[in-house]
């Protein structure tokens, strides 16, 4: 079994923050924590945390190029503990390697953004926020790497000690769903409530009222699938996995010559005839002129919300929300269908 290991500049021994801009390097054999894995580490890759964050494409291209040449059976990244930048690099590299057929495992604190970056492609072993949990983190990664390296698959998250990857894998069961439904219901009536699907996250708390409308910066966000006519970015009409941003700079109204809706979940005849009724730009412009609020944020954020998973919708909300906060937006008109 051939193992490759990724470490940041600090754990690879190149230096601390002053070396965070260091480009990607490749070293033969195990380095630093890699010696504690108990695995045949053939090669170690490293990169400065800042460099990875600021030049992600270049860093990934270099690292993945080496991985393609070295052809390891498994890639181990980290552990990154609570370090967000290091964790992000570990999660992203592990994801891209796994996408290319090299199974990968990493380790970090469950809140680390690197967990999201791994997108379920890589196994992520949960760790303590600080290096105090180094020994357990290395042992946890090594156990999974040993399996992955020989083409095996770890068991469930609970059994194998990794964070659930939001992957739902189909398994054959002897007892049919219909019979299980009756069993489950009788148990629930008897006071024992069990479920095969964990309930998703809780509802969203309503925000407080907008404190001062006269200075409010308002953004338009929609799940109606409203896009420039011709759908230049090919927004899908259902099961969307992304959102799009279009400038409203100099746009006074959404007329049907310039805009359409590609939503696959309702009859779009009226929306296409008068796009302002699905995204009320005309009314917001009039209100802006009258001084009813401060200003309109000069972008429209759009997706088509039909058959879209809650996980994706939550991600859209987080990503769009982060951008709006950055821009100082204080209120949003969100149109749904």
């Amino acid at each position, binding site marked *: 079994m051939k193992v490759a290991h990724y470490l940041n500049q600090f754990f690879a021994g190149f230096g601390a923050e002053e070396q965070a801009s260091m480009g990607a390097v490749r070293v033969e054999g195990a380095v630093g924590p890699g010696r504690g894995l108990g695995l045949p580490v053939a090669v170690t890759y490293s990169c400065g945390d800042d460099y990875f964050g600021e030049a992600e494409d270049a860093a990934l291209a270099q690292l993945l190029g080496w991985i393609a040449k070295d052809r390891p059976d498994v890639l181990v990244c980290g552990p990154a503990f609570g370090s967000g930048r290091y964790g992000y690099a570990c999660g992203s590299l592990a994801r891209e390697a796994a996408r290319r057929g090299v199974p990968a495992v990493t380790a970090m604190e469950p809140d680390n953004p690197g967990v999201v970056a791994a997108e379920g492609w890589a196994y992520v072993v949960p760790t303590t926020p600080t290096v105090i949990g180094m020994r357990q983190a290395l042992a946890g990664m090594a156990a999974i790497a040993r399996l992955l390296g020989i083409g095996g698959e770890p068991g469930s998250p609970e059994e194998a000690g990794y964070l659930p990857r939001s992957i739902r894998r189909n398994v054959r069961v002897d007892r049919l769903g219909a019979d299980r439904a009756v069993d489950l219901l009788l148990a629930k009536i008897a006071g024992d409530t069990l479920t095969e*699907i964990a309930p998703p996250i809780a509802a969203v708390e309503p925000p407080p009222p907008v404190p001062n409308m006269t200075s409010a910066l308002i953004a338009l966000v929609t799940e109606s699938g409203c896009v420039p006519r011709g759908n230049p970015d090919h927004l899908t009409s259902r099961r969307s996995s992304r959102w799009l941003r279009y400038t409203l700079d100099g746009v006074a109204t959404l007329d049907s010559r310039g805009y359409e809706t590609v939503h696959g979940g309702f009859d779009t005849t009226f929306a296409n005839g008068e796009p302002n009724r699905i995204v009320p730009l005309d009314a917001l412009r009039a209100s802006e002129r009258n001084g009813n609020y401060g200003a309109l944020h000069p972008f429209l954020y759009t997706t088509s919300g039909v058959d879209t998973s809650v996980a994706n919708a939550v991600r859209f909300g987080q990503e769009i929300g982060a951008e709006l906060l950055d821009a100082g937006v204080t209120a949003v008109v969100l149109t749904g269908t």
Partner: protein
Amino acid sequence: MSGPALERAIFQVASVDSGPSTGWRNGRLTIDIRGLQDELRRATRIPSVEVDLTQPGEPVRIVDVLDVVAPVDKPGGNAFPGLLGPAESAGRGRTALLDGIAVISTARLGDADAGVPSIIDLAGPGAALTPWSNTWNVVLSFGDVLDAPIGEVEPAIRLASLRTAQTLAAAVRKIVPDRVESFSIADETGGLPGIGVVLAVAAEGPGLDTFVFGRPFNGPEPMEIDPRGVLDGAVVSGAYNEAGTRPTTWSYQRMRLLESLLERHGKTLRLAGVVLTAAYLDDAAAKERMATGAADLVVRSGATGAIVTTFGGGNSHTDAMLTVRALERANVRTTVLIAETNGGLTDHVPEADAMISVGNEDELVDAWRPDRVIGSARLPDGRRAASAGPLPFLAYVGSVNQLGDRPFRSVSA
């Protein structure tokens, strides 16, 4: 709900072959394929119709599948009331059922939701996803009927498929069955918990309808139906979208959930009734009305628990969740059967705390090359049917249907 029992006389099919006339001899069914083909051409006026016979486990992929029907016969020849005869009551008396054989219709229809392939693999990795890899199949291929108005061609194909199923089963008239299953509903069940079923069906127009006693059921109110009627041809699928998550007519005829409840009736529970609801409703008020209406009927049946089923995904899952909420608020405990996706659930209410997973519709099944393709050579997206893959569970007919009759669930990984 008591009354006479439904008796299902089971005839086990050992082999099927083609011959000059249709008949049954010691488990061996002979089918006049050419005569059947001529009859289908005449009845449907679709000249391209072809009939194929497949063996269990043959390396065959069936494409553009519309429906699957279990061959059944009723004395008097009205196995599908309202469609093959008057809308008389179903679920009583004796029905002959051929076990181990299916009638499968295929066609490429216009207007229907053509985005997702609708296939059955009789061998290879997809074979495990379907009961029909183990059956003999009489496949009626109507070909490309995209140019024909769906409102004319769809009923013709549906009726022809049902009639074929009945014609095959009529071969066992006056013959002693291998066994008889009896479904009765005793009134006296002591203090056993009453359990209801809410069966949501597709109701969106031609190609997306469900027929109940011959008419498309589209509400506007929920209705009660005898569970034995569901098992006995009263409910017929005319909905052809989302192959994996939709029930076929077969799924209703052999609905394991109702069989399971009927088997346990009088032992561990009392089957209080089945309520049909129309799902995929267009507006919030209609959805709420259907959900609360269904809950009212369940409460009136005296049930303290209910199993909620659905079809498809997205919109219909909102209907299912609203139904769960309405039932729980009326103090009826619930479980709901749900097909999962890679992205989690489309909708959820906190009251849905006991969910059954029938599997993840997005999971991919390895690519496979059949020796023969029945139906279109290409999938709706243009890929060659003989080499396309990997394909998701969603493309395999009934593999993750939410009546819970397939041996799958999904687990975290």
